[in-house]
């Protein structure tokens, strides 16, 4: 079936899959946001245990999505993997370290004789929540703002000279950390950070049976929604007004085009509609629980969550589709990565496309398992009777 599709179609199909994984990852980072709120929303040990356990039953989905996002990106666009990971070394290393400490923090936090103490594991959760969201947001922003690197595959053949035999060379001074100095990158990083906190609050509202926590959550929802909207608008308005990195479809030459991302919005109306619907869903999901006081406050996570997926998904499509270089180089424009010049071979994309048919099945069993486990809200009493708690 996939053999009959063109190479370009397969490249676009895999960009869509990677974008979807990235979008789902940002939604699932409500776990990270929640980790930064444990002490804000939980004032007693019991309350904090409820919050940690609510997040603890979902952290692996986020983690697995991150790993799969990485694997899928590697398999479908290996030049991005080699250029960005090997170049923006410190950004990715810090992200990794943040996720390493998360993986154990849940399981070890409340176990007796855990060497580092409960507080240390809670700090690890906080660090993961802060660094994980801000740095991933910052890294994704460079899809629009660019990074300084050069790519020359033929460097492999140089047996003498300084460059040999490095294909992708990073020119940024701080191996990627320089991206965090760009206010626009940082504004997307902080957008993701506050969004993840907003989503976490909505998730808690949906899952906790505890009046005190819910009351605090409502207050925090406003405090976090405001900076989220401010940072998001800063980034979105800049994006619409800024120049972008376009590809000439004939010559494959990369050039700077004024209002490129605004043009992408206009020229891809379906994506534009997805983007607008996504943003509206996120906002409605936030506003409804703030403005009403009765039962309507529990579904916000679904509305804002799906909204997040749609918004991030469309942002990825703005970055890579419509003849756009998704990983631009500010050092050497022609080194910029496009979905065509950085992808795997047609054969590999075809083989993996068959595997991608499993995705709906995976989503179905996750949905099924999630529902089976979340049929009841969680309260302090349940924590006391549960045999395996975090």
């Amino acid at each position, binding site marked *: 079936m996939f053999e009959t599709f063109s190479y370009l179609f397969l490249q676009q199909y895999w960009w869509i899959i990677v974008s979807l994984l990235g979008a789902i990852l940002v939604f699932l980072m409500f776990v990270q946001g929640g980790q930064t709120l444990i002490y804000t929303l939980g004032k007693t040990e019991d309350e904090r245990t409820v919050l940690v356990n609510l997040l603890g039953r979902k952290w*692996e989905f986020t*983690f*697995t999505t*991150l*790993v*799969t*996002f*990485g*694997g*899928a990106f*590697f*398999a*479908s666009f*290996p*030049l991005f*993997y*080699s250029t*960005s*990971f*090997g*170049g923006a*070394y*410190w950004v*990715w290393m810090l992200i*990794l370290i943040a996720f*390493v*400490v*998360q*993986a*154990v923090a849940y*399981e*070890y936090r409340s*176990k007796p*004789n*855990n*060497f580092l103490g409960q507080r240390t594991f809670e700090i690890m959760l906080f660090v993961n929540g802060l660094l994980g969201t801000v740095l991933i947001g910052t890294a994704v922003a460079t899809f629009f703002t660019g990074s300084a690197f050069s790519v020359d595959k*033929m460097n*492999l*053949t*140089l*047996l003498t000279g*300084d460059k*040999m*035999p*490095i*294909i*992708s060379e*990073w020119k940024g001074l701080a191996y990627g950390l320089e991206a965090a100095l760009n206010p626009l990158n940082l504004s997307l990083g902080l957008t993701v950070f506050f969004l993840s906190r907003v989503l976490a609050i909505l998730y808690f509202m949906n899952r906790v049976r505890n009046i005190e926590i819910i009351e605090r959550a409502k207050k925090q929802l406003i405090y976090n929604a405001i900076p989220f909207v401010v940072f998001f608008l800063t980034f979105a308005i800049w994006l619409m007004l800024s120049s972008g990195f376009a590809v000439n479809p004939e010559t494959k030459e990369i050039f700077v085009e004024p209002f490129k991302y605004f043009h992408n919005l206009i020229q891809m109306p379906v994506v534009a509609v997805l983007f607008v619907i996504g943003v509206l869903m996120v906002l409605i999901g936030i506003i409804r629980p703030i403005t009403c006081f009765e039962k309507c406050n529990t579904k916000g996570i679904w509305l804002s969550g799906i909204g997040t997926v749609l918004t991030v998904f469309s942002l990825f499509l703005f970055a890579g589709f419509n003849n756009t270089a998704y990983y631009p180089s500010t050092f050497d424009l022609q080194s910029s990565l496009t979905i065509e010049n950085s992808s*795997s*071979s047609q*054969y*590999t994309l075809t*083989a993996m496309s068959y*595997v991608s048919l499993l995705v709906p099945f995976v989503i179905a*069993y996750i949905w099924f*398992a999630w529902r*089976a*486990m979340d049929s009841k809200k969680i309260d302090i009493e349940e924590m006391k009777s549960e*045999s*395996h708690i975090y």
Partner: protein
Amino acid sequence: MEHIDFSLVDWSRAQFALTAMYHWLFVPLTLGLSFIVAFMETKYVRTGNPEWKRITKFWMTLFGINFAIGVATGIILEFEFGTNWSNYSWFVGDIFGAPLAIEGIMAFFMESTFIAIMFFGWNKVGKKFHLASTWLVAIGSNLSALWILVANAWMQNPVGMKFNPDTARNEMVNFWEVLFSPVAIDKFTHTILSGYVLASIFVIGISAWFLLKNREHVFAKKSIRLATIFGLISAVLIAITGDNSAKMVAKHQPMKFAAIENLYHGEANAPLTAIGMLQQSNEPAKHDFVFKIQIPGMLSFLAFNNTDAFVPGIYDLLNGNPEHNILSYKERCEKGKIAITSLGEYKTAKKSGNDSLAKAALIRFEENYPHFGYGYYADRDLTELVPNVPVNFYSFRIMVGLGFYFILFFAIILFFALKDKLQNKRFLLYTALWTIPLAYIAAELGWVVAEVGRQPWLIQDILPTIASVSQVTPASVQITFWLFFVIFTGLLIAEIKIMLTQIRKGPENAAEVTQNSQIN
């Protein structure tokens, strides 16, 4: 190549080795214990005996503690291919990336979805649904091992691909050849079986401790019996797959094979060194035996099923052996250099539109491509192409020796377990307890042989470490190395302390479980 910063290559290798070895401290137990727990829960569901539920839940708790840190160390490995081996990621990403992606889609989600039910679902889902989840966790864990081991096997024996000169990388041409390569099948079976053996020894050793402390007799005996049967079958199968693995190494990685055997001058009817001790020789890159016990003809037989078969030694490979059609490394380096420069000439000719020149360069390139990686060593000391002999020699022997010991160990434990006389055999119980660290040593040494033995190749004969590494400062890699070292070590201590506390605590109160199972 004098301007390549070797401390960068070394630190990058050290970092990868550190993460891989830490990761492998936890993964084998996950692989085996997931199945052991699944067997135990099956017993519970079939018999309805709440004692089996207690047993299941106890081992499940230890599984969870170990699983978390395995996940933590695993994520780094995936991303390190990009962060530290960036050239590699492009050069073979077209083949190597796919198993990683498939691993995520197929295995990790299965593991992480059903592990939540396994831990938290006891009172939320039905017995059979819970059991199915436990099995799916086991299958998911082992499936994830499949894909990463396929990727590793491919590095040791690259098949199913073709170099594309236009994109300057290897591209997959046959997915099934990659997945079902005999090296991949052996690597997968041998490795997961090592996990089963380790987990069985772990369960037997801990249960033996309970018997030594005169606690939890029923729990300990049931656990031992189940783990011993699983362990014995796995230990026998691991010997068979180990034999196959060695044959594969002899066929595809003769230098690794010679290093493992400390064999410098190849011979027909080559003897197998059962035990030996090495010392540095005066000759370059050579080690002599201080003493050795050898079995005549056995090496030729084990490697090629024929006692008369010629097994090449390190010098045959290094200096060549025309009688057996073995090119010297010097010749291979020359050919590799031709391949590399021809690729450059092909690109230049193509750019300038000179098709005939491009065609000629391409032909030269393709003829010499099997030696591509050697080209990077054309002006270097060729002994760099010889892996560390003592590390391979000793690691291999300790691993194999322990492997045979484990078979004997399982057989003896099973004998006394079936006669129900284990609790009186204190020496045997202590032995069982102290066999746990031996299982970890054997598992780690297996990887030492596999990975140190193939140096300096990331991709056998095609891409060496010096041409794969990312261009970051050595200082950056040093810092991340020590960061990981501190974090992993801290977490390992935490893991061991938590695990020991949970073991001392023992399985949960019998009355509680009975009550819970009535609710179920």
